[in-house]
């Protein structure tokens, strides 16, 4: 399985400088991680302005809490946790906890095999926010069902069912050939 896009090694010396409030060092950290943070937020929230807010919140919180980073885990994982919490905080704020119903899947060729990135990006936007977030954390960031359950304060079965149903929904939408034209968003 490919590593998370956050999986960027950061020299301890750079982190140490940033902890001493060296803004130049912190800017280097920002330059390393601004795309993964913004991409995660935008894919989950599907809203550019909110994603930009998450980017700001993430780095401001990281700057404030740098002294609490203990070097006993990868820095990227520590930063990703802050970003995921910031994004999920906004998911919870939306209060649109629509959960997908189970969808019966048919056999045959997997329609996703031939789907382009643009199509997948558009389909992703059509999922309910929570399902999209669960799907992204599981498949892209490699979160376990236990970690997702903890992040959402729900059960493991909630995570499993959302991952399964969101995947089925994406395929159903693709099979219906109803590629919707969304608001402009980079794919």
């Amino acid at each position, binding site marked *: 399985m490919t590593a998370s896009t956050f999986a960027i090694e950061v020299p301890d010396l750079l982190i140490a400088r940033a902890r001493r409030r060296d803004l130049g060092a912190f800017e280097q950290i920002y330059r390393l991680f601004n795309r993964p943070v913004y991409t995660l937020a935008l894919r989950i929230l599907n809203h550019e302005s909110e994603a930009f807010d998450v*980017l700001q919140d993430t780095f401001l919180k990281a700057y404030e809490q740098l002294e609490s980073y203990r070097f006993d885990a990868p820095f990227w994982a520590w930063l990703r946790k802050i970003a995921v919490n910031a994004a999920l905080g906004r998911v919870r704020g939306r209060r649109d906890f629509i959960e997908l119903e189970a969808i019966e899947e048919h056999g045959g060729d997997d329609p996703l095999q031939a789907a382009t990135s643009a199509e997948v990006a558009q389909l992703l936007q059509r999922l309910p926010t929570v399902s999209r977030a669960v799907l992204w954390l599981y*498949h892209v960031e490699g979160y376990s069902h236990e970690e997702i359950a903890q992040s959402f304060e729900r059960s493991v079965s909630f995570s499993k069912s959302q991952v399964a149903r969101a995947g089925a929904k994406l395929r159903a939408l693709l099979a219906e050939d109803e590629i919707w034209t969304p608001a402009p968003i980079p794919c």
Partner: protein
Amino acid sequence: MDASTDTVLSQKLRELPQIDPPANGWQLIQAQVALAAPREKRRSLDGTAWLGMAASAVLAAVLLTMEPPRPAAVVAPGQVAIDADVLALMQRSQALEADIRRASTPDVDEFRFAIEAAIQDELTLVDVGLASTAKPDRTLWAERVRLLEELRTVSQTDTGTLLMQASVD
């Protein structure tokens, strides 16, 4: 489809490209960090921090009081001839520096300090470029004037308005 082994979906989602955030992301974070800095400095201000601030202040003072690179020499007999538009830029540059000196106050808040320091850094680069060219470079002088105009605007704008502009840009 078994979700736990849905490698096709994993692969498709992972293939989606990363997206660049708006370009002013760092500037906004820098400004907010600068605003938060006074609180932190009150908690623990060590000698190194003072040294850095003092060095920046000295640099700023030097930049604002120094003569623009070679403006006088270029009009002297036997020196390099200067185009009229470059001469106009030099004079404009001197006038702007005078304006900025008049508008400068000893009490500068952290946010304003950060913005002015960023502009002054760019001015330093332009001045290095000007100092290294034998003939006055029109583009560099135009850039110097632009940066000084920016610096003057900042010096004449209240912090609240600057903050609003930073959040809109």
